[in-house]
């Protein structure tokens, strides 16, 4: 358990990561509050979702940490619930900071960059609000603030990391459910933790880190129990750049078809005449045009 270094300071070029352990989360939302306070993010308003204790709902332009309240089928014993109550799990969601980030690839302004710590960062002074990153994110994280006109998401506390500090959410977490540190180190921590949980009987504990997909892994992995889909984590996220090759190929095919088709159409139709012109002349000119078109 005491695997977290006392001071997870960052020396500038270490690749860092979050490990969010849902088996330790108590749903206190300290991470949400700390994130909003440190980053000066606007309030989401005071509304009830009406079907769960999760009244935040989802990540968005003003929600960079989001505690999920996963109420699932009764699982007596482990997890501490009596048999007749729904089992309750909490998990603090965050931008995944993908290795192959859809938002970063899609950004046409170069506003979204990879930081020296491996995170994905939106530079607010360059973002122009085209909202293409919004549809490019396979995790539905980044969102455009329509009042402001720019897109926002978790910065991985780039400012704090540059100062050698851990992100605000990790610092505020009272149960060390949110761990922060060097990525390879945290991976080991996660593997040890899952082994420990499994040895205690939580055989469904596992790490969520989609390394086998085109996303090629994330900088914010999670320990969850059971199927990741009940935590709204996609089993096979894909970075949208995988569709580019096919798309541009079809674009080229379409353009070629347009040129050839138009040449043929003009050639068949021949020179436009307002009065009656000899059929032979028209045929001759169309044949000439066809030859010309083929040469071109």
């Amino acid at each position, binding site marked *: 358990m005491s695997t977290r270094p006392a001071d997870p300071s960052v020396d500038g070029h270490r690749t860092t990561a979050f490990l969010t352990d849902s088996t330790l989360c108590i749903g206190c939302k300290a991470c949400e509050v700390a994130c909003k306070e440190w980053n000066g993010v606007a309030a989401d308003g005071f509304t009830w979702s009406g079907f769960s204790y999760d009244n935040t709902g989802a990540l968005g332009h003003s929600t960079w940490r989001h505690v999920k309240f996963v109420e699932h089928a009764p699982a007596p014993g482990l997890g501490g619930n009596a048999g007749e109550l729904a089992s309750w799990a909490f998990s603090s969601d965050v931008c995944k900071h993908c290795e192959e980030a859809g938002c970063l690839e899609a950004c*046409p302004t170069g506003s979204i960059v990879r930081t020296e710590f491996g995170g994905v960062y939106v530079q607010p002074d360059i973002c*122009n609000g085209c909202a293409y990153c919004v549809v490019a994110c396979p995790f539905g994280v980044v969102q455009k603030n329509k009042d402001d006109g720019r897109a926002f998401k978790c910065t991985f506390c780039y400012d704090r990391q540059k100062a050698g500090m851990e992100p605000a959410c990790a610092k505020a977490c009272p149960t060390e459910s949110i761990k922060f540190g060097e990525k390879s180190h945290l991976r080991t921590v996660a593997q040890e933790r899952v082994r420990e949980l499994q040895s205690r009987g939580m055989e469904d504990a596992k790490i969520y880190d989609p390394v086998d997909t085109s996303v090629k892994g994330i900088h914010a992995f999670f320990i969850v129990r059971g199927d990741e889909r009940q935590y709204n984590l996609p089993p096979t996220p894909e970075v949208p750049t995988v*569709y580019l090759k096919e798309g541009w190929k079809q674009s080229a095919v379409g*353009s070629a078809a347009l040129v050839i088709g138009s040449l043929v159409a003009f050639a068949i139709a021949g020179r436009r005449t307002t009065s009656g012109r000899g059929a032979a002349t028209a045929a001759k000119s169309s044949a000439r045009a066809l030859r010309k078109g083929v040469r071109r």
Partner: protein
Amino acid sequence: MSTDRIIQNEQGRVPDAASEARLIEIRREAEKRGSVEAVGVRPPGAPFPIASPETGYYGIHLLKEPQWTPEIPLYFFVGGAAGSSAATSAIAEWTGLDHKIARDARWVAALGAVISSGLLISDLGRPSRFLNMLRVFKPQSPMSMGAWILAGFGTFSGASLFAQLMQDYFGPGIVVSVLKHSSQALSALFGLPFHNYTGVLIGATAIPVWNHNIRSLPIHFGTSGLLAGTSVLELMGNEDSTALNLIGIGAATLETYEGYHLEMKRDPVINEPLKHGVSGWVTRAGGVLSGPVPLALRLAALIAGRRAKNLRRLAAISGIAGSILTRYGWVHAGHASARDWRLPLKVAGKPHPLEERMQSKPEIPQVKVA
């Protein structure tokens, strides 16, 4: 109706056998079960639905909906018409077959580029930052490529039109001629990707219904753009051009095939937004107006000969309307697709969460029974 009911409630109800029997029924159920299941007693949504691999996270959708303004589908339409017109202009001019179409298409391309830029800028939350698009060149971002293509297309189609006007006012000259032909060539070169890159733009995203159709979208959007461009040219006084009618027949045939193809697809979950709901009907209407309708009108016009101008005008209007509806339909389908929580979680064939959300889950007691 509603007024009557309010008055009745204000005056109080008269108890009768039925109302009393109902109250006793509720009491019996409460005594027997410890809770009451009847409609109107249970607050909506209670007890809470459960999160599970089959129902996802309460049916809250993972993906974000597109956040483009209504200008963007219109931009797709204008860009398609303008881009294809640049190619038509060049072909009409170089084959030497139709100088009027070459001239008119120059106008469509140049004005289309201006309107496109206006629409794109008005979509941005901060219009002054359109230039930010031009600070990097990113081949892996269709949005970046689109910005550069638009910049090039606008420049050269504008130059081509400028040269045309210069030639009209000052007569032919070697400089103007070189400018005219080189800019026309470059305008067509940029116009070709400009007329169909929007298919790549929406296809290479995380939105399931878009990326699922990446194979057909660029050609579909390109064909729709060509049909629109041809139709605009026809309405500019070229209704008697057989060449334009033949191009229109080709485009409408492809659009008919595309509509048939979409209708016949056997993967109901991902393509649902293209068939059902508002987006389904808009897409379908777009498909009919850009496929079979102009195809039939154009074939009739072809048979009727060059005097069938009204048929051609009708076909052109139908094609333009179809192209606009097609763009709005596809973008709307993207919204519906993003809202479908099942798709990113790979939960196929389950009923939509809204139907399930209000259903009771009696197997999970919410109150611990002493």
